[in-house]
Every structure is written in structure tokens, then in C-alpha cells.
């Protein structure tokens, strides 16, 4: 197996993992701090992608498109938090699941009404549309490399923010013990709005960056949402570090699995089995991984609460 192919797949996995991290970080914080399941997190990602596509088309600039998407989605996130999620914090998980499931239905239909059922296109900047050759003999799409770099940058920003700023400290305190944090004077209600809006902004970044690579269409949020949930369950709810580890793990395992498992099966098994078993196993690999992690660590790898 050529080294270049392996490196390429690992980079793809890294890219997926970093984008997953952007979603998972917001999700795990909302979960960890507000103890709230938000199925509509994927819808924020979708809205981010749609906003990016529309503004990029109108303004002619991908950068402006992303910026508009982040600001717009964060604003929507803040509005949702104030208007709806505040009523959900004290309710049961079942209520939250159903309410946010309703949000998915509403969001999908609204998007369908405004933009139609057909996928819309979000084009990557022309300057990035070709491959580059970072190392002699190895070519990789420039855009994907930029996505990786952007993901790392945002991730670092998040890490620095969470560990080194006052707000970040509040966030970590609240994730570890919400009541105690509130008793210690953390303004929980504003913090919640901020966390929610920030999570929405991160979703928008992921949506905008992935838009050119995947289709921008109604329902795009659902598939990645499930991956994000797998990530935070593996990583441990409430833990940003867990979200990072989980995302990279899932991103790489899923990508490498899909790329190499079928080939591996073809080597090991007769075609009658391998032609289907390989891809089938590849598609469920991350769920097997999740079940295994939960078997040994029922609360994930780095649960935020003791």
C-alpha cells in the first residue's frame, strides 16, 4: 500500500476529525453545562452552510461568506437560547430530545421553503481549487489543507480561550459543577447564552468549510450530528478535551476504515464475502468503537463531572 495513499487518508481523517471537533465542542459544552441534549445542533451547522453559500454567492467572497455565516448563526443560536432553550434546561432529557427533534423538522422545512429542496452549491475559492505538493511526489488538495489549518487554528483558539481566559474558567467550572459555579457568582444565564451562541458559531465554521466538499442540502445536519454525538459520548460529556480526542479518533477511524477496510477484506477473504462485508463493517466501525468504549468506560474517556 503506497505511503502517499495512507498519508492522504490520514489527512482526510484529520480534516474530518477537526470539523467534527468544531461541532462536538459546542455540543458537549451545552450538554455538560446546561445538561441539555440538543438534536438541533446539526441544524445550526446546516444553517451556517446555507448562509455561507448565499452570502458567498452574493458578495463574491468566500471569506465574507464564512464571516456572515458565523455571525448570523451565532445570532440565531443566541435567539434560540433565549426564546426556547431556557425553558428546556430544567426539563427531562426526553422533553429535550423531542423539542429539539421538533426543531429539526421545523428548520429543515423552513430551509426547504426558502432555498428549495435541491442542493445548492458553495464553491471553494478558485485559488484553492487545485492540488498542492507540500512534499515532493505527494499531492493533496489545497482546500482540504486549508480546512485542516483552519480547524487547528480554531481549535487552538478554543483551547486557549477555555484554559486561559476568565470566561473559559467559568465555562470549565460550570461544566464541572453548575450549581457550585452559580453559587460562586458565575452569571450562569449570560454564560449559557454565550456558550450556546459560541457553539452555533463553531457549527457555522464547520458548515461553511465543509460546504464545498459535501453537498449543501436539507438534512445535511443529521448525519454529522450523529457522528458528533458519538464523539462526545466517547470523549465524555462536558469535556472539550474529550471532544478533541474523540473527534480525531472518530475522524481518522471512520476515514481510514472506509478507505482501507474493504481492501483489507479483499486480501483476507474471498470476494463473495469481502465485496459487501468490508464496506458494511467500515460503515459501522465507529459505532462498534463507541460501544466498546462505553463497555469499559460507561461515561466516556474524560467525563467532566467526577
Amino acid at each position, binding site marked *: 500500500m503506497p505511503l502517499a495513499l495512507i498519508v492522504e487518508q490520514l489527512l482526510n481523517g484529520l480534516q474530518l476529525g477537526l470539523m467534527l471537533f468544531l461541532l462536538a465542542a459546542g455540543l458537549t459544552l451545552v*450538554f455538560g453545562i446546561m445538561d441539555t*441534549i440538543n438534536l438541533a445542533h446539526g441544524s445550526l451547522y446546516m444553517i451556517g452552510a446555507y448562509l455561507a453559500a448565499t452570502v458567498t454567492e452574493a458578495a463574491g467572497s468566500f471569506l465574507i461568506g464564512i464571516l456572515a455565516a458565523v455571525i448570523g448563526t451565532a445570532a440565531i443560536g443566541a435567539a434560540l437560547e433565549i426564546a*426556547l432553550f431556557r*425553558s428546556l434546561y430544567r*426539563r*427531562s*432529557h*426526553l*422533553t429535550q*430530545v*423531542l*423539542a429539539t*427533534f*421538533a*426543531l*429539526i*423538522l*421545523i428548520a*429543515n*422545512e*423552513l430551509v*426547504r*421553503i426558502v432555498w428549495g429542496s435541491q442542493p445548492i452549491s458553495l464553491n471553494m475559492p478558485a485559488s484553492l481549487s487545485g492540488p498542492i505538493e507540500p512534499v515532493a511526489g505527494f499531492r493533496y488538495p489545497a482546500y482540504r489543507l486549508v480546512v485542516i489549518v483552519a480547524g487547528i487554528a480554531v481549535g487552538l483558539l478554543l483551547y486557549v480561550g477555555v484554559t486561559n481566559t476568565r470566561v473559559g474558567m467559568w465555562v470549565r467550572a460550570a461544566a464541572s459543577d453548575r450549581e457550585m459555579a452559580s453559587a460562586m457568582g458565575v452569571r450562569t444565564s449570560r454564560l449559557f447564552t454565550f456558550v450556546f451562541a459560541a457553539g452555533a458559531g463553531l457549527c457555522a465554521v464547520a458548515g461553511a468549510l465543509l460546504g464545498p466538499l459535501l453537498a449543501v442540502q436539507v438534512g445535511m445536519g*443529521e448525519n454529522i450530528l*450523529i457522528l458528533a*454525538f*458519538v464523539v462526545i*459520548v466517547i470523549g465524555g*460529556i462536558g469535556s472539550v478535551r474529550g471532544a478533541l480526542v474523540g473527534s480525531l479518533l472518530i475522524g481518522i477511524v471512520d476515514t481510514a476504515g472506509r478507505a482501507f477496510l474493504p481492501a483489507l477484506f479483499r486480501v483476507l477473504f474471498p470476494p463473495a464475502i469481502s465485496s*459487501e462485508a468490508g*464496506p*458494511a463493517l467500515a*460503515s*459501522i466501525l465507529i*459505532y*462498534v468503537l*463507541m*460501544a466498546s468504549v*462505553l*463497555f469499559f468506560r*460507561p*461515561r*466516556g474517556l474524560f467525563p467532566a463531572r467526577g
Partner: protein
Amino acid sequence: MRDSFHISLSPGATAAAVAALVLLPIALNAVDQSFYIVLATRILIFGLIATSLNLVIGYAGMISFGHAAFVGAGAYTAALLIRGGFDSAWIAWPSGALAGALLALVVGAVSLRTRGVYFIMITLAFAQMVYYVIVSLKILGGDDGLNVPHRPVIGLGVDLRSDAHFYYVVLAIFVLLLAVLRRFLNAGMGRAIQGIRDNETRMEAIGFATYRLKLSCFVAAGAVAGLGGGMIAALNGFVSPSLLQWQQSGLLMVMVILGGAGRFLGGMLGAAVLLGADEILSDYTTHGSLGVGIVLLLVVLVSPQGLSSLVRRQLG
């Protein structure tokens, strides 16, 4: 003596309801709307499936987000058997139930070691696994699914190819299973699972093997869901992976909540409302989901008891 667990059905109302259901096809035929018999059959089947989920969510308090997988398992099993020449409903449908039960056993055995939101996520993940496996296997038709070439045979002078006959068979199964469920819920096992819902830790602390109890409940629900799946496969004449999508699991949960989680007829009511609304709305708009979403959101937010109680308090 007060009995907080007791499900009481007024004999008069029950008899009237059953009578109405029995007369329905006749009435529909009379007004030349016999097309709706199939819809009514579908509502009964989903009512049964939703009731099985209500057992898990509403009565036992386990928020399972992967119930569609058991329906799908039953549907595909029945479809494969009928396609393979095993025409008899006496084989196809119980096999569907068995498939649902076995899958629930595996999923439950692993998932029930977790609690709270981890449980929700792991049940969802398992359902996804089943979905993706089915989609990947060509012998299961992949994305397109499988045709069920004809309705199964049941004998006893009943011809399932007749929509009316199919309806009556489903109705009989429905009434029978609901009666069994009511008996079960009103007795020792029913008290125990509701005890688990109320305070699982204390149930264990007074000597109940809660894991085993929850697993039994989960498997029983999986069996009924599998049976429902088998009946759907026969009714529709095909099975497709869309039966197993997680949105389907979500819709089943919606049925339970709309109808009333923890209320005996909650699943039935929810199925009737959702499927009925879908039928009516689809004539007017393709954006029916918007309405469903808004209604669901309002119900969830405004529900006076708060869905977190999940119990209809039958006070005194």
C-alpha cells in the same frame, strides 16, 4: 385502596371502541371510501409499535432512541421469509417478532449498562449500525429495499389479500396484545417496572434485579415492534431501509409523547394523530413536517404535567 399503578378501562367505553373498530371497514365500504381501510390498518400496526415503545419509555422510563431498528429487523425477516417461499403468516410474523426480540436482547444487554443520556446515545448508535449494515448488503436490496411479492397466507378461511381481512386480523392481534399488556402492567411485573421508573436506585436497594427487569421489558417491546414490522412489510408489499432511519425512531417517540407517555392508550392515540394528520396534510402541502414540528414543540413545552413526570397521576 389506592392503586397508583392500575390501568382502568371502563367496560362500556372499551366495548364501544372495539365495536367501532370492528364496524369501521363496513362503514367505509358503505360510503365508498374503502381505500382508507389500509390507512386504518397502518394506524393499528403503528399504534401497536408505538405502544411497545411506550412500555419502554413511558412505563419503564428508558429513553430508547433506536426502536425503529427492531421494527426494521422484523420487517426484513418477514420479507425474506415470504420471498424465500415461507408463505405462512404463522411463520413470517412470529419470526419477525423473534428477530426484533433477539436484536433487542443484544442491544439491550450492552446499552442497559449505561444510564441517562449515554443510554439514549448508545441505542441510537445501535440503530444506526443496523441501518448501515442493511443498506450495505445487496441481498437485502441495499438502498432500494426488497419487494414482498405477495401477502402471507394465514389459512382459517381468511385471505390476507383482501384489505378488509388483513384489517381484521391486525385488529384481532392488536386487541389481544393490548389486553395482555394491560394484565401485565396491572400486576407484579408492571408495578416493578414503574417502580424502576420512579426510583431505580431504591428498586435495586430493596432487592430487585433491575438490569434483568429492564432487559426483559426491552426485549418484550422489541418483539412487539418486530411483529409490527412484519405486518408492515406484508401490508406495504415492500421493505426499505428508510424504516430504520433514526428519524423513524424519532417519529415513534413523537407518537408516544403526543398520545401520552405512560398512558395506556398513548401509543395508539399518537399513531392515529400523526398518521392521520400526515394523510390529511399531504393532500394540501409538502411542508406538513413544519406543522408537525410546531405542534410537537408546543405540546412538549406547554404540556401541563411536564413530560418529565411521565405518569398520569390517578389521584384517589
